[in-house]
C-alpha cells in the first residue's frame, strides 16, 4: 500500500471538527488547574504543617506516576469507592489533578523570584494579608510564570489524547475510528498528529504574543 497524502487531507476536516472536544476539555482543565494551583499555593504559604505535608505527598504522587494510570484511577478505581463518573468528567478530573500539581510547582518557583522588599513595603503600609495576596503577590506571580503556564497548556492539550483510552471521542479517538473503518490507520494518525501540532503551535505563538504584550509589566 502506498502512503496517500490525499487521504490525510480528506480526514483533516473530521479531525478538526473533533478538535472542538479536545479544546473544550483542555480549556476547562486549564481553568480549574489554575484555580486549584493558586489555592494550593496560598494554603501552602499558611505553613500549617500537616496540610503542607499532605500537599507535598500529593504533588510527589502526581509527579511520580504516569498520567495514564491517574486517568485509570479516576475512571476505573473511583467507582469502587462509590464515585461513578462519566468518561469526560473522569478525564477532566484526572488531568486537572495532574496539572494543578504542576501549576503549584510553577508558582513555587515564581514566588521565590518576587523581591521580598515589596512584601515588607506592603506590610508596613498596613495592607491586610488578603490585599497583599491579591494586589501584590498574585498579579506578579501570574506574570512571572506566564511562559510556564502557556507550556502547561500545550501539555494539557497533548494529555487529552490519552482520554481516547477511556472512550472520550476527541481527536485521537476519532482518528482511531476513521483509521479502522478506512483501513488507512497510518494516514489518519499522521493527520491527527498534524491537528495536535497545529493546536500546540497556535497556543505557543499566542503565548509569545502575550509575553510581548505584557513585556513592560513582566519587567523584561
Amino acid at each position, binding site marked *: 500500500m502506498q502512503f496517500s497524502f490525499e487521504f490525510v487531507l480528506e480526514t483533516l476536516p473530521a479531525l478538526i471538527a473533533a478538535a472542538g472536544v479536545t479544546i473544550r476539555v483542555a480549556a476547562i482543565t486549564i481553568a480549574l488547574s489554575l484555580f486549584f494551583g493558586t489555592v494550593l499555593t496560598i494554603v501552602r504559604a499558611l*505553613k500549617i504543617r500537616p496540610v*503542607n505535608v499532605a500537599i507535598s505527598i500529593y504533588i510527589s504522587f502526581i509527579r511520580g506516576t504516569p498520567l495514564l*494510570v491517574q486517568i485509570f484511577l479516576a475512571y476505573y*478505581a473511583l467507582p469502587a469507592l462509590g464515585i461513578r463518573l462519566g468518561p469526560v468528567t473522569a478525564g477532566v478530573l484526572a488531568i486537572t489533578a495532574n496539572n494543578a500539581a504542576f501549576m503549584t510547582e510553577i508558582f513555587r518557583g515564581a*514566588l521565590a523570584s*518576587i523581591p521580598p522588599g515589596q512584601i515588607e513595603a506592603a*506590610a508596613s503600609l498596613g495592607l491586610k494579608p488578603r490585599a497583599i495576596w491579591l494586589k501584590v503577590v498574585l498579579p506578579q506571580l501570574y506574570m512571572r510564570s506566564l511562559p510556564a503556564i502557556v507550556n502547561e497548556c*500545550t501539555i494539557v492539550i497533548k494529555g487529552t489524547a490519552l482520554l481516547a483510552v477511556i472512550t472520550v471521542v476527541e481527536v485521537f479517538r476519532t482518528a482511531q475510528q476513521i483509521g479502522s473503518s478506512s483501513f488507512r490507520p497510518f494516514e489518519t494518525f*499522521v493527520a491527527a498528529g498534524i491537528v495536535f501540532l497545529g493546536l500546540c503551535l497556535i497556543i505557543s505563538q499566542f503565548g509569545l504574543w502575550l509575553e510581548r504584550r505584557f513585556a513592560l509589566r513582566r519587567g523584561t
Partner: protein
Amino acid sequence: MIDPQVIIDHWPYFAAGIWMTIQVSLAAIVLGFMIAFAVALLRTSRFRLLRGVASAYVEMLRNVPFIILLFIFFYGLPFSGIRLPEQVAGTIALSFFASAYYAEIIRGAMASVPRGQVEAARAMGFTYGQILRDIIVPQMWKFALPPMAGITTMTVKESSILSTITVAELTYQGIIVQGMTFAPFEVFFAIAALYWIFTAVLVRLFRIAECRVGSAELAAAARSPVASKYLTLEARP
C-alpha cells in the same frame, strides 16, 4: 472493600510488568540520549539547512502527543516493509520522543560551558572533535543533569502508554490483572505505587550524580521574616 490479597496473589504479573517497564524505559533513555546528542550537534551546526532539520525534528516531536507518535510509528513501519515486535517498536518510538527533550537540554548545557574556553582551545589548534571531547562534554554534565532528571522520569512515565500497543509492561499487566479480578482500585493503586517508587529511585540516583559533577546549588536567598510569610512555602519545623 479494599483487599490487598488481590495484589499478593497476582504478584508475578506485577513483577513481570515492572521488569519490562525497567527494560523498555532504560533502553529508551540510553538510545534517546544518543540520538539527542546528534540532534544537539546538528542544532549548533554551521549549516542553516542542518539547523533547520534538527529544530523541525524537535518541534514536531514536542508538539504531538506521545500516544499519536507511537501509533504513527507502529502503523507506519509496515509501510516501509519493516516488521518489529511491539516492545522493540515501542522502545524506538519512546527513544525518539525522549531525544527531542534531551536534545534541548544538551544544547543548553553545551552553550553554558564558558565561551572563552572554546575560543582558547580553537586558538591552540584543537579540532572540533577534540574541543567536544576534551572541553565541552566533560563540563556539560553539571548543567545537563538537573533538567535531565525530569525528562528521564517523564520517559519512564510515558512508557506506560506502550500498554496501548500491547507491550507487556506494568500498566498493561495491571489492565490484565484488573480484567481477571475486577479490583480496579487495588490494582491501579499498586501500579501507581510501583511507578512512584521507580521514579523516586531514579530521582535519587540523579541527585547523587549531580553531587558528583557539582551542579551549582541555587543558594536560597536570605529573606526577611515578613516576606517569607508569603514567599516561602515550607512549613517551619
